[in-house]
């Protein structure tokens, strides 16, 4: 996959999430935030080229979700603006995993869009500051 094509996929994470019906989940035992397809493809690999975000990228280079480690412990500490999103994940689906109840999904949509924008902006910043080389980005896109 070309660098520009992959960059456009990153820029369109919100759209992909909408089309593929991604779900936000918080695992309180691992302090991980997930925003992913309900069933992540077996040919996906978790890849990290940004400080706070890892992306699930399948073997065609398509993005299937993202993960934030140390989500409340660190990320939320530096990004208080996402507190309502974490606060809305109140529906327990197993021992330690929470999702947003159906009736609150509309209210948190713009927070998820802001996370997608953050991923796109940080990718562009990393490239323009030469922190992330073209080769590294292409390696991520290889899936």
């Amino acid at each position, binding site marked *: 996959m070309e660098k520009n094509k992959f960059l456009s996929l990153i820029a369109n994470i919100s759209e992909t999430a909408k089309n593929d019906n991604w779900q936000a989940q918080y695992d309180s035992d691992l302090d991980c935030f997930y925003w992913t397809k309900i069933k992540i493809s077996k040919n996906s690999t978790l890849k990290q*080229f940004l400080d706070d975000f890892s992306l699930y990228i399948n073997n065609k280079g398509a993005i299937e979700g993202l993960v934030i480690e140390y989500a409340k412990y660190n990320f939320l500490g530096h990004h208080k603006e996402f507190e309502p999103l974490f606060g809305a994940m109140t529906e327990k689906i197993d021992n330690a*995993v929470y999702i947003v109840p159906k009736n609150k999904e509309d209210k948190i949509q713009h927070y998820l869009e802001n996370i997608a924008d953050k991923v796109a902006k940080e990718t562009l910043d990393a490239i323009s500051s030469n922190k992330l080389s073209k080769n590294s980005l292409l390696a991520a896109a290889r899936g």
Partner: protein
Amino acid sequence: MSYYSDKFIDYSKREIEVKWTKDTWDNHLNKHPELTDMKQASVLINETLSDPSLVMEGDTIRNGKEEKIRCYYKEHKRHQDWVTYSKVVVGYNADPSYIKSVWKKEAVHYLIVQERKYNFKEIWKKTNSYL
């Protein structure tokens, strides 16, 4: 009754066990596509715990409670800036200690060890480790 259970000995001869419910196993299987079955998960855990490249230890807050954890990292492959590695997160405030998570992932080398940002202590590092 655990759905996935196994026992391991880490590089320092400490006993560590995994005792996961079906929900925890299913959740891991979905979030970590590289895990295929319990046998393969146990192999990945065992090789990471018994021969880690780096081990970090620190305190975190989970579910409102302080918890001591150890993160075992093992490098599997390095190509240019990218490293393929496994990570096993162990709850360390019980005896035997217990596996909280395992995964294999690829990352740009300088982003791998997140725990350095949170004042975790490096308690083991292989001399040839890039981490």
